[in-house]
């Protein structure tokens, strides 16, 4: 059980695929337009249940609870061999400058 007052992400379908704009590429037409938003739960709830949250601007939004304590996990990426190659090209070509 995720307690009331927890920091979470909810997910909500903004437009079902059949409600979407007509002027879309075929692949986009086949999927729903989905929204994710963070906030604090206003009631106890389980993962994947519908829950109400209060957002940063104090709006109340309802959606499916998909994540507890959402975190930033984006990074600088892994080692990329091509970056080393680019570096050696630049350093070699500018050696004499």
């Amino acid at each position, binding site marked *: 059980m995720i307690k009331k007052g927890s920091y979470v992400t909810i997910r909500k379908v903004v437009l079902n695929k059949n*409600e979407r704009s007509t002027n879309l590429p075929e692949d986009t037409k086949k999927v729903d337009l989905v929204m994710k938003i963070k906030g604090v739960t206003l009631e106890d709830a389980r993962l994947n249940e519908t829950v109400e949250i209060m957002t*940063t601007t104090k709006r109340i939004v309802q959606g499916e609870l998909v994540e507890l304590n959402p975190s930033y996990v*984006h990074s600088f990426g892994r080692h990329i061999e*091509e970056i080393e190659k680019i570096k050696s*090209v630049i350093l070699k070509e*500018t050696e004499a400058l």
Partner: protein
Amino acid sequence: MTEFEKVMASRHQIIKDSLKLDYHDFELEGIAFDYEKLMNDSGYSFAEIKKIQLENNVGNTPLIELKKITKYARQFAKPGFGARIFLKDEALNLSGSFKARRAAISVYHAKKMGYKGVVAATSGNYGAAVAAMAARLGLKCIIVQEVFDSKEKNQPEIIEKSRLCEAFGAEVIQLSVGPELFYEFLRILDETKYFNASLYSPYGIKGIETLGYEIADEMMQKEGKYPEVVIATNAGGGNLTGTARGLLEHGAKNTKVVAASVDLTGLHMASDHDFNLKSFTTGHTGFGIPFATYPDRSDVPRSAARPLRYMDEYVLVNQGSVFFITEALALLEGMERGPAGNTSLAAAFSYAQQLPEDFIVVVQESEYTGAGKHYQSQMTFAKEQGVRLMMGNPQEEIPGKTLVFPTSGKLVKHRTLDLMGLKKSYLKRYKDHHFSSVEYNYLMEELRLTLSEIDALMEEINEDEKR
């Protein structure tokens, strides 16, 4: 009527309420409107804009000569050629990009007009710029972004932008791929009654005029002349429009204004599948070309960003070349900056080689870098999406399939777009229209063409139709 149709039907009223600007005041007749009136009625003088920006740690960024990059480029130019390359280090603005110039005026105006908060639809640096300014002025802030595809795979660069908005206390609404982001944006404006901090309002564009003005002013003081060329990374057209207007304001009438975009030909901007195959989320042809040929596709009835009024040339570079130049900027100049801002630097590296060595080319922006926004994270992400990374000739890069990094600086080459072709695309939407003299005058300013050139293009369009 569905909820979607209802909101879209009331869009003009929502936009009017959220800007307190009635765009009907600027309409002339038919397709024509009074652009200068739109810009002049914003109620802010150049001096006031400068003052608001300086009070908020925006503007007066350093203009740095990239001496080693220049020398590097000269190796590939014929003797006596290879213009001096300068960089306006806009990454040093509040929130890390030139977008702070736009946000400073938009958010200031929102506060002045008594709004409690601001909303902006942007997946780019503008979000953090609005959020930072809203934080300073004590306004609430909501940023609406396009972040993930239907598999809920996030684009790392946009996640970083979400993070920065949240760091400044903004609420971020993250959406999956699709132009109906505009619907959610309108819905939020209607619900909150906040100000529409549009990138395309006159406030959003007037804020950039200081950038062009500063370049002209500093060059005149230091070098005793205006730069021969200013290159601007082009997406929605506001950066180029505002910069060019600022240059003109100072008197730099002969400075050539060049637009540069990353070539993403073949990738559809509204495609769920293509969304995560891009290594650049802005500054690319997917925005640059449609916004140049139809500026009013934006989130206001009449966009204040009208790049074809100011563009002397439009050049493209590919993704691999921009990553290469981003690395060169770090290795040779000790400046680690975000890849998107370096699009115009990659173009300048090649462009300068065709100009005499006493000419000056100014790259008018840089942006901050960090996790997600770093070329290493973008390359890692591209690999995960099945894009092949290789060394070779970047001209052979296929957007969405390969990233090709040059095996020598001499392979960093720009490609010039046919500007007349873009103007023809602009006119295509009016193919069955008979222009009045007011409309002709409008088009002559909008496209910088003579009446007979417009007629010739219209004739070509009608001929093409028949075929």
